[in-house]
């Protein structure tokens, strides 16, 4: 195949650090990253490569009367212009439901939907040629709101009834109910002394990973294609791509290129099919790199949500019931909306014991941008609502909000509304106690930069009020509802230069979280070697599942552990056969086979000689069950993860400016395989929650995105981000490898409600929508009194 210019990290990453499980082992890709030599998907280059780009719809909903590509084809330097008519296989793809066209077919259903593709010898040539394609649109009124979506006869179907592939009907994409304790009847309501009701809204958040969607497709001699791409799950990309490309899966080979962050935004396909189509058509390598604006159109966002909650409690603060309805805007295509609905419904009351629950969660099809996976995945929206409700309940009862939460917190052995009993540690009350016990930060000093408004010089402290707030959440780990998201690992032990070296080969997507680091740590711990080589992730080995759902250390880490154990057993078997060992306490350390009774028995190098031992293992988590569609009952989740936050804010109540002063977290991670990386996950997840609380929203107007840039969609900078003390608990989960608990998502849940709670404490406002904007703090609305 064509050589790549910068392929160091695509070849092999070798580590020789003697750091095993439980240490702050260094990243094997760290030196390449700080030297600027790590090859991200946008850095790839091949001789004779072309640049691909897409023409996207400027409308949220329109019929396409005609597409004329002749002017684009006439642009010098253009090698191909493609529309849906050029698709060799099926026209649609999707993670769960194949309802998304690779290129628009006769209609567009959202702003930014790809309509045509261009390959040219310079990216600017490609862009200009794309602009020269004439598309005749008949613009239609978009379906944008819940009211419109739920009345398709009046406002229209996003997918016409004959084309509908969702899991419900009309413009409802999926619906899940959860009913426990017989539901919330009048008789149940009568048992509550205090009732609080609230309707909450969560805006559309963007993953805003920094590395734009990009990759390089190289046509192969066998008629297939090799794709180097930044993604979260190589095998599911291939499963979706091959039918559209009209190729058998084995002729679509994917290698992971360097990934500049993901956070759920790379679960769906973006440029994969497009680059491959252009490469196969032109016979030349094709590189596609989105700019930031295209990136906002190129991936799904976090579902905006409208959440209606009613909580009833006794006078002494015990929850009696929760009655709730969660409406998620799925946008034009299904993506992972059904699973997001399942999470919102099953985790929708939070980490609390609730005797009676009546919950309904649904996702709608609309002509808004498609929404799908983002860190927290359906649990984020619910957490903002139920934690807001817990604060309101505490206020109604005149009790301390942390103590109210602790009183109702789930513990190991308690049942969730799905009927699933929590069968590993669930230290929710302890996490809350810990964040509350932390010392509070001092009052703002004289430095203007520490004030709300900071360098804008809008206050010197006048009008500034401090507030403190808390939040806690519950997130599932791994794929749920009966899905077997197994992971595969291949481990090879051989002698290189007189020293045993372990080669670890998985298809797990390293997206920054440090999967490659923990794989090395596990191999060192299990095989007693110092040197570990991490093979590039590709489709040459079995699936590793997705780098999402906080699952990779648990699932692929577990697969690496199993493969190492199998290699170790084979090594011991050879030793027994050759040397007649009878010891039953063999282990590997420092490159030697050791027995407590017999001491050092042999060196691994001598035992292996020129031979290599290679074993491949699949790691399946314990089976789960689908939720009953009407009652939501079922053993639906693999594992639960809990995090609590305390936020301290200063608010300029006259100008509506917020400064988050401190964001403290406590989280149970079961076992910190790499404690430094775990803290890094908690920091990063917490700050994405901060962004949702006070900054981030993809603003749409009639389905059109108004702010697709980092100038207009603001993510937290270092000045927006406070110090973040973190307290990590390690209470082992007996069902998980090393007792570990998936850690990446839980911090993104509770940070948002904790910050908004603190702003409420400072302002006395109800604040039922995130992100909180200055006008929410300064323009008093009637319902907020």
């Amino acid at each position, binding site marked *: 195949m064509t050589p790549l210019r*910068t392929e160091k990290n695509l070849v092999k990453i070798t580590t020789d650090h003697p750091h095993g499980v439980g240490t*702050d082992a*260094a*990243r094997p*890709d*760290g*030196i390449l*990253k*700080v*030297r*600027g*030599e*790590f*090859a*991200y998907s*946008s*850095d790839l*280059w091949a001789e004779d490569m072309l640049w691909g780009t897409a023409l996207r719809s400027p409308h949220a909903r329109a019929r396409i009367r005609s597409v004329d590509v002749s002017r684009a084809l006439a642009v010098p330097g253009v090698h191909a212009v493609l529309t849906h008519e050029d698709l060799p296989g099926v026209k649609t793809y999707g993670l769960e439901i194949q309802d998304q066209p690779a290129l628009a077919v006769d209609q567009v259903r959202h702003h930014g939907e790809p309509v045509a593709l261009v390959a040219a010898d*310079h990216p*600017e040539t490609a862009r200009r040629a794309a602009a020269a394609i004439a598309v005749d649109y008949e613009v239609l009124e978009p379906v944008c709101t819940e009211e419109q979506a739920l009345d398709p006869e009046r406002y229209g179907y996003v997918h016409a009834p004959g084309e509908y592939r969702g899991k419900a009907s009309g413009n409802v994409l999926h619906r899940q109910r959860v009913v426990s304790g017989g539901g919330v009847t009048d008789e149940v309501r009568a048992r509550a002394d205090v009732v609080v009701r609230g309707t909450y809204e969560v805006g559309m958040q963007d*993953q*805003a*990973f*920094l*590395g*734009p969607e990009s990759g390089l497709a190289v046509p192969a001699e066998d008629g297939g294609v090799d794709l180097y791409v930044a993604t979260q799950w190589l095998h599911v990309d291939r499963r979706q791509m091959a039918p559209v490309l009209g190729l058998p899966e084995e002729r679509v080979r994917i290698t992971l290129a360097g*990934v*500049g*962050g*993901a*956070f759920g935004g790379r679960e769906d396909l973006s440029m994969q099919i497009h680059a491959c189509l252009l490469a196969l058509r032109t016979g030349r390598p094709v590189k596609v*790199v989105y*700019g*930031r604006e295209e990136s906002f159109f190129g991936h799904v966002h976090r579902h905006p949500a409208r959440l209606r909650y009613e909580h009833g409690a006794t006078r002494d603060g015990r929850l009696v019931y929760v009655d709730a309805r969660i409406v998620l805007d799925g946008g034009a295509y299904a993506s992972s909306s059904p699973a997001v609905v399942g999470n919102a419904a099953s985790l929708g009351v939070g980490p609390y014991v609730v005797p009676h629950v009546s919950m309904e969660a649904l996702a709608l099809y609309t002509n808004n941008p498609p929404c799908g996976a983002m860190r927290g995945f359906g649990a984020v929206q619910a957490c903002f609502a139920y934690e807001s409700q817990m604060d309101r309940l505490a206020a109604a009862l005149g009790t301390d909000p942390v103590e109210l939460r602790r009183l109702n917190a789930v513990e190991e052995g308690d049942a969730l509304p799905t009927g699933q009993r929590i069968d590993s540690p669930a230290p929710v009350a302890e996490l809350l106690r810990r964040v509350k016990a932390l010392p509070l930060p001092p009052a703002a000093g004289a*430095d203007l*930069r520490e004030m709300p408004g900071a*360098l804008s010089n809008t206050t010197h402290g006048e009008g500034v009020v401090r507030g403190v707030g808390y939040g806690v959440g519950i997130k599932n780990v791994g794929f749920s509802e009966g899905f077997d998201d197994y992971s595969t690992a291949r481990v090879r032990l051989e002698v290189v230069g007189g020293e045993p070296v372990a080669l670890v080969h998985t298809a797990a997507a390293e*997206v*920054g*979280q*440090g999967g490659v680091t923990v794989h090395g740590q596990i191999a060192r711990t299990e095989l007693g070697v110092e040197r570990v080589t991490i093979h590039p992730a590709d489709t040459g080995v079995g699936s590793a599942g997705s780098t999402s759902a906080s699952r990779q250390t648990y699932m692929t880490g577990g697969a690496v552990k199993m493969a190492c154990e199998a290699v170790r057993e084979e090594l011991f078997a050879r030793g027994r056969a050759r040397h007649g060992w009878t010891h039953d306490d063999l282990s590997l350390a420092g490159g030697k086979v050791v027995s407590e009774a017999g001491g050092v028995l042999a060196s691994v190098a001598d035992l292996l000689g020129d031979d290599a031992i290679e074993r491949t293992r699949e790691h399946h988590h314990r089976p789960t069950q689908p939720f009953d569609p009407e009652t939501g009952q079922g053993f639906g989740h693999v594992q639960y993860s809990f995090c609590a936050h305390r936020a301290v804010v200063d608010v300029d109540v006259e100008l509506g400016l917020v400064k988050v002063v401190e964001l403290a977290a406590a989280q149970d991670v079961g076992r910190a395989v790499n404690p*430094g990386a775990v*803290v*890094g996950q*908690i*920091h*990063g*997840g917490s*700050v*994405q929650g901060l962004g949702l609380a006070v900054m981030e929203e993809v603003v749409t107007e009639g389905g059109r995105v108004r702010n697709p*840039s*980092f*100038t207009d969609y603001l*993510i937290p*900078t*270092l*000045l927006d*981000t406070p*110090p*973040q003390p973190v307290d990590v608990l390690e209470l082992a989960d007996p069902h998980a490898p090393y007792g570990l608990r998936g850690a990446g998502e839980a911090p993104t849940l509770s940070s948002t409600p904790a910050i908004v709670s603190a702003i409420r404490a400072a302002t006395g406002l109800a604040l039922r929508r995130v992100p909180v904007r200055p006008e929410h703090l300064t323009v008093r609305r009637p319902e907020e009194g």
Partner: protein
Amino acid sequence: MRVVFTANGRRVEADDVWEGESLLYVLRERLGLPGSKNACEQGECGSCTVYLDGEPVCACLVAAGQAEGREVRTVEGLAGEDGLDPVQQAFLDAGAVQCGFCTPGLLVQTHALLERDPRPADADIREALSGNLCRCTGYEKIMDAVRLAAARRAGEGAQG
């Protein structure tokens, strides 16, 4: 057009440069220096930060022609022959690198900060690096890394 300048101490030239190309594009796509990153290409994220005649700039906002005859230093030019720059080492040791896409820009910006202010206060670090977005780390370990780099540089200075 042809553009000639100095990149990391080496004379470089690029031919057939379209006038609309940025310095970032020329570095990444024509000169084999893709270390400077392309996260927003409108000067908001700082991931393409390079030195231009000793001043940190966003390479995406510099037209290629503006670099003519000038000195550019990128992340690839930070390490010396004897190993990593203390700023690079501190980012690794502090765990400030996750996906690493923001890292090249942050390294150059931190390098520039410590050149002009060897012992910055926390508030000064936050201000100086506020033009460099990071989406993975929540910035805490980046703060640690800058403090560590400053302390190590000061230590080296005392010894030297």
